[in-house]
């Protein structure tokens, strides 16, 4: 048996677990929640861990766990085609989410092409953005903006009446219903999923570049089922596993899996080299938006 704590799309982990069991005959028990809840549960359980494999939506967890020496080093044979920045000792990306502009095509606004477009008068009072304190993706983007001296975009947004609205879903909802026109820093796979369901929404990758949120998958050192856990990682990184990842509109972390959507290689990425510490990033954001 293997116990997986997974943040992120429930359908994905459900499919992965089912496929894994089918393929290997090993049962996979899944606990699925948000990153925060998964981490809270992990931390509360720390003295008597239950999980074998953890999937998080934030790469930071992996580096942090590694620093605390919680992770089992394992290089899956299937990880060969995963680019280096998506793997480290003890963790590898299961898939990658990108940050985008989610734009309602029926909103009667011109289609934005870049972040700064949303600061234009056409979008006055029509933009939402997730709270970086509650959304890892937005946080990474804000971090990159600060690192690249692009905070004037944020200031422009604020001046244009953009509102900070909770986590990702809370920011997307008003755009879907048409109360707002676009989400600044939407999440690509959620937006694409909605579009696939027939919502009039489009994910736009901004010209000036964006950030991605790799979703690390890792084995805890405390695991009692390390072999099964390794098999699980192998399965996730297998062709079949990566197709499942792609099915929920995430970018597969293996570069050799081709699906019909912009992939990591196609994106212009902003670096967040030189960004300040988390508290300062949040404080900087708050200084603009409050």
């Amino acid at each position: 048996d293997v116990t997986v704590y997974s943040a992120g799309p429930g359908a994905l982990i459900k499919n992965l677990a089912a496929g894994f069991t089918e393929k290997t005959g090993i049962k996979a028990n899944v606990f699925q929640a948000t990153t925060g809840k998964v981490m809270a549960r992990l931390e509360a359980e720390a003295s008597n861990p239950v999980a074998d494999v953890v999937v998080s939506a934030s790469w930071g967890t992996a580096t942090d766990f590694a620093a605390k020496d919680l992770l089992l080093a394992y290089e899956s044979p299937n990880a060969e085609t995963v680019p280096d920045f998506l793997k480290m000792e003890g963790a590898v990306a299961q898939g990658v989410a990108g940050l985008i502009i989610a734009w309602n095509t029926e909103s009667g606004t011109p289609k934005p092409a870049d972040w700064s477009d949303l600061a234009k008068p056409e979008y006055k009072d029509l933009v939402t953005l997730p709270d970086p304190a509650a959304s890892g993706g937005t946080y990474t983007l804000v971090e990159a903006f600060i690192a690249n001296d692009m905070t004037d975009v944020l200031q422009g947004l604020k001046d244009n009446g953009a509102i900070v609205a909770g986590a990702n879903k809370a920011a997307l909802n008003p755009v879907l219903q048409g109360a707002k026109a676009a989400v600044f820093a939407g999440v690509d796979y959620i937006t694409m999923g909605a579009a696939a369901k027939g919502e009039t929404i489009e994910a736009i990758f901004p010209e000036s570049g964006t950030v991605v949120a790799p979703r690390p998958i890792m084995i805890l050192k405390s695991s009692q089922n390390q072999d099964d856990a390794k098999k699980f990682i192998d399965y996730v990184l297998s062709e079949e596993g990566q197709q499942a990842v792609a099915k929920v509109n995430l970018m597969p972390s293996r570069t050799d899996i081709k699906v019909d959507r912009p992939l990591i290689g196609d994106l212009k990425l902003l670096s967040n080299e030189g960004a300040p510490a988390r508290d300062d990033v949040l404080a900087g954001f708050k200084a603009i938006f409050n």
Partner: protein
Amino acid sequence: MARGAVATGAEGSATLKWIAIIGLLLVVAIPCLFIVVQAIFPEFGSGSFAAPFSVFFKTLIDPDLFGLAGNTLLLGVGTMVCAAILAVPLAALRALFRVPGALIWDALLLIPFMIPPYIAALGWIMTLQPRGYLEQLTGIHLAPLLFSVTGIMLIMGLNTFSVVYFVLSRTFETIGARYSDVGRVFGAGQWRSFWRITLPLSMPGLAASLLLVFAMSIEEYGTPAALGRRIGFEVLVTGIENRISEWPIDLPGSATLSLVLVSMALVAFMLQRWLLTRRDYRIVGGKPQAFDKKELGVWTLPVSLLFAFVAFLATGLPILAILATALSRTISGGLKPSNLGLDHFSELLGAGSEGLVALGNSLVLGTTTALLAGLLGAITAYSVVKGRGRFRIVLDALSITPNSLPGVVVAVGIILAWNQPWLPITPYNTPFILLLAYICILLPQPVRYATASLHQLGDNLEASARVCGSGPLKAFVRIVFPLILPSMVTAMILVFAVASRELVASLLVAPVGFQTIAVFIWQQFDQGSAGLGMAMAFCAVLITTLIPLALISLLRWASKGTVAGLR
């Protein structure tokens, strides 16, 4: 209740006292203790007692804290006032007059409890925001009201006023018209005798339920987060959730902030105690008086309209919003006939047994929680009201604590407590841990309900049972419990409703692979399918409403109308 001398007869059962003490220790005190420990020892999760108080003070000296606490207080008090304004007239009318369709109104007013707050908030947003359902239907939107502090208070008041309504209508029913009629003989008009007599006499119910509302609203996350963040209105609980919702998480920080919430609730609690001990509210005496509800006469229609209006606001609107979303193929498609259909419902049924299993789990858990929490609540309240000594204040205070703790924090406390490696057996990772969590979170309700009722009972009723040869336990079972049963039935129905839709604790402490309705709904949302989730929410509300309703009808039929609370 101040009492003269030591009275063995009034002391109550030692068995019950110990059940209450042990029950509260297990269910409430232990998780709370671990939360405190977590607040003090940041590394406690991994079993280390390093760096005590390092995070504790850092969190407490945060300059923002003052503002957050102020906002929290404002929100709590505002919600309380809204809830009281909505509930008091309805409860009085319901209890003292023959309101047509009273049971139906009761059932409708129960529904706000069954709708998870995050869904209700979403429903409100989708209805009132620009291009929301209201604008689509009528061309106007109420965004400025919705996204304002008043709006948050109103919506939270609408979500919580039924607590006050149910407690108070039981309290008023016990008071009856007798005492105000006496006032009228002495020249007080109907209104004045209500203000001077009935309302003050209902203080046990009013204070207890407003305490519940206060504690609930300072702890509630969904609504202030969905509405408040947009206008920069942040409260303590958003701080707590922020510390726990994204990586990196800060358990000790959120535990510390929770303690601030708890101390606020405890202050409110002391206020409530003071109100209740200052005066005497024992109106159920040894010379029972018949009491018939009065006819409304010409007021029948206006009163029915008032009930309809409030029920529409509190229940109709959110439910309609849920239904609209569930029926819409896409949200962006709006309420156009072409965009409407039963797709989500058929998908729900087609999703196979998973939703049904979740529903079954929730119903079983809800029922068990309701029974156990009801019983433990009644016993605790009894020990507190009838007992003596300091222990009962501690018990009483403990019993309100979980209500002011955010669900996440309670869940963390429970995991910390029950996942200790040295425990020989543990309910952790079995469904029983959910039961523990639910009882912990929901215990405040039955305790407050029972407290309110017990404050109305005269001492001699139990005393005479004792003299007739019944032991304290039997006197409780045969005399006290039946007398507070009407309140307890209501409390248990509420507990059932909330337990069967509880999300946060369920999400966090549920054994791996165990699903409840709320978790299932949340996952549908998480996958981006608001429609499917809303369809599920709608079905869940329907079922959780019908079950207690069927139960009440059954009880009513079985008791042939002799149980007061079911009339």
